[in-house]
């Protein structure tokens, strides 16, 4: 089975750890990816605030390229990219006239036939069925599953997990032996939109997320979004400074956790690249 993969800007930059873990577990499960050739920026978060057609044309081009290359299913590990692609597909399906306009803009034929999967959907569909036999080292830790804002929203379009109190990540984690804690901050804002401009707000908001996870005895925060990860991991010194605290809880991608559970070495799944040291294995 060959999937298309859309890496977006993070996976090849600040979230190389995420990228490595996705490829590592795919390989372990005999799954292959084809990167969408000549892919472009998905337009998150800037485009849809400025120009609606542009915000649709950018993802539409990506999807059209996928169609052109015969990629029926595309995995989009970044939650922000995922959201843009799915919303675009929805908007263009709803309005054929708009679709025609966008096709003219991108000078390509777009039909909207590709299936777009986020990382959890992909895990659910292709990893979970074969997971049990591969687990060599169950991830026996208490974890706080943090979904962030884009993975499950807007729920009217995604229609795959409930927007408030989502469950899918918790289910995946429990399948590899983890014990998810009751965690009310699952979808609280990490401040991603202000990641660059107002780091103080990021520190404030992300700090609350980290504090509650530690308070509930979680040994790791599990994420599936590079933005979440960078705010909770990379910004940790700022957060600790802001809150005058010493939060040590590591932030782990779900794909990294799966990698560990099936016995992949920490380096292979990018765990050595984190700012907050990951001591658990």
């Amino acid at each position, binding site marked *: 089975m060959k999937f298309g993969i859309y890496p977006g800007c993070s996976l090849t930059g600040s979230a190389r750890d995420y990228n490595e873990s996705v490829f590592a577990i795919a390989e372990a499960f005999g799954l292959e990816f084809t990167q969408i050739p000549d892919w472009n920026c998905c337009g998150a978060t800037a485009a849809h605030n400025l120009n609606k057609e542009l915000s649709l044309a950018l993802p539409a081009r990506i999807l059209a390229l996928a169609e052109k290359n015969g990629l029926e299913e595309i995995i989009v590990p970044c939650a922000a990219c995922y959201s843009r692609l799915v919303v675009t597909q929805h908007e263009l399906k709803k309005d054929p006239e708009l679709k025609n306009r966008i096709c003219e803009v991108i000078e390509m034929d777009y039909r909207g036939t590709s299936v777009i999967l986020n990382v959890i959907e992909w895990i659910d569909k292709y990893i979970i069925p074969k997971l049990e036999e591969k687990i060599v080292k169950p991830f026996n830790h208490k974890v706080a599953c943090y979904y962030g804002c884009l993975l499950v929203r807007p729920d009217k379009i995604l229609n795959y997990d*409930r927007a*408030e*109190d989502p469950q899918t990540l918790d289910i995946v984690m429990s399948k590899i032996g983890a014990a998810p804690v*009751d965690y*009310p901050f699952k979808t609280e804002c990490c401040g991603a939109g202000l990641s660059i401009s107002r780091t103080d707000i990021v520190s404030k908001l992300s700090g609350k997320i980290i504090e*509650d996870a530690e*308070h509930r005895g979680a040994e790791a925060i599990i994420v599936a979004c590079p933005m979440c990860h960078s705010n909770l991991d990379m910004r940790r010194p700022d957060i600790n400074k802001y809150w005058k605290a010493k939060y040590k809880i590591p932030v782990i991608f779900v794909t990294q956790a799966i990698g560990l559970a099936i016995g992949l070495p920490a380096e292979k799944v990018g765990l050595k690249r984190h700012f907050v040291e990951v001591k658990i294995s």
Partner: protein
Amino acid sequence: MARIGVFVCHCGENISATVDCGKVAETIGNLKHVAYSTEYKYMCSDPGQTLIKDAIKEHNLTGVVVSACSPRMHEPTFRKACAEGGLNPFLCEMANLREHCSWVHEKNELTTEKAIDIVRTQVEKVKLNSALQPIKVPVTKTAMVIGGGIAGIQSALDIANTGHKVIMIERSPSIGGHMSQLSETFPTLDCSQCILTPRMVEVAQHPNITLYTYAEVESVEGFIGNFKVKVRKKAKSLDEKACTGCGLCTTKCPQKKIPNEFEQGMGMRPAIYVPFPQAVPNRPVIDRENCTYYIKGKCKICEIVCPTKAIRFDQPDEILELEIGAIVVATGFDIKHADFFPEYGHGRYKDIIDGLQFERLASASGPTAGVIKRPSDGEIPKNIVFIACAGSRDPAKGIAYCSKICCMYTAKHAMLYKHKVHEGKAHVFYMDIRSGGKNYDEFVRRAIEEDHVNYIRGRVSTVFERDGKLIVKGVDTLLGAQQVEIVADMVVLATAGVASSGAEDLAQKLHVSYDSHKFFAEAHPKLKPVETNTAGIFLAGACQNPKDIPDAVSQASGAAVKVAALFSQSELTREPLVAIVNRTSPPTYSTCVGCFMCQSVCPYQAIEREEFKARDGKVVKTVAKINEGLCQGCGTCVALCRSKSIDLLGYSNTQVYAEVVALLNEY
């Protein structure tokens, strides 16, 4: 030979200002079969009507066309005038010269020409009208009330007190409904049970009322005045006549861990039980799903201890077939389970409860004897948060409508809490306070001003537990949308009121329409709020939409009056504008070929089967037959019928065809 009279009205100047009425009358007078044609200033006035009556006699008219205003305005007036003049009222038609012509066009020749066309069309139609007689339908003077809550009780008592028989059906073991669960009632804070229980007893004792509890409607056939209702009396596993209601069985039953429905799951009950002490009838039933005997085949302790040997383990369900003249639907409402709002934590955290659960906590006869104790540890909450609109007015996640009663009962809950826990703090998150009603707003003001309930205008985003406390995160929109976080000991959700479970199923059995929320639909939102679109079936209480007690009771009385009015005659009279399937001589019997596609289009189940039998009793032909009592005259079957075997009186095929021809051709 037809002799038609045409009466052109000026309507003061309303018509004559733009239409040349004289020319209309004259032109129409030249038509074949028009025996008399005249104009007059006000046809609807007494002299105008006398003109018609006299002309009918003088010119021996066989049909009348009054060319005036809309038939929706004055058709009854002129039909009555014709009847008084000795002409069958259905031989009178109206040509709408005012609303459809003079008021909407300028004064010119085309307008007068249009007026002539309109009148001529009615002349051609009325030639084909037939003298119709009103339809008479017999009435069975027994009413059925479905549902034994306060609305059903009120309706049943009111009907019974007019001297008519009432059969009341209640699906749970006791009547009383949600009102019997309530602690106190707004805006008076009087005890709900104290005012309800006497009514329940009255129902049980009323000579005109027959009560079937633990019973449900199985099927409904027939039509107004003549319903045939099958009722399933579920087996109570008890000989009700032998049982004295001593209650020994319920105390000795070894199975005691069944969540008590009456207590909203906040207490337990045995497998043989009386739902609550004041239940009517005060007789137990065995809950077969949870009874050890039915599950494992042995126990029978209740049978052993019963002093009157009233237990009947092998009792079957019983089907009653009842003849009913009118039905009052009073099946009430349910509350929406809060699991669609996972962020509010209902079901996950024990101390987050819904409004009905709070009623039981606050009730003197409830599981805590009226002391407000939180379910998790029995502690008295010091800080309590009430969340209004938990699901109501929320099209995205809940329901779009306002549940109407929540604002008031939330105020009541907060007050009851403050009255019982003086040192406690009560907070209410609300969107708007809807307290329209006699003494309602004063009641809410009292909660705020006298009992110092903290009202916060804003919604709650999430409720979660941390260190044994409930953290309620919300917003205060009156303080510049500031985020608010309250650390509470208990949270009460004012969950939306929704249609009673099984409402859709019942509506389909009754052939009554229901809205998208499964609430029963009234025939007209303003002028027929008590009627349904099925004649003879009426609505009372919260089965139509969430209602408070006084609204439910007044509507129940309204429904009772409708039933009483229906029962005041031995026969019903209806306008005879109904569909009819033709009949011919044997061996054809009818041109209907019996495909019964009409049956599937009829919204009123008015199409029946009629079998024709040969002398040897063998059925030789089955054709459609219209039940005049049920048919409302929409004519959808008429347009569908391929063999043109159905026709609609008043709008017959020949009539509408003649109208088309008359409107478009020269005469």
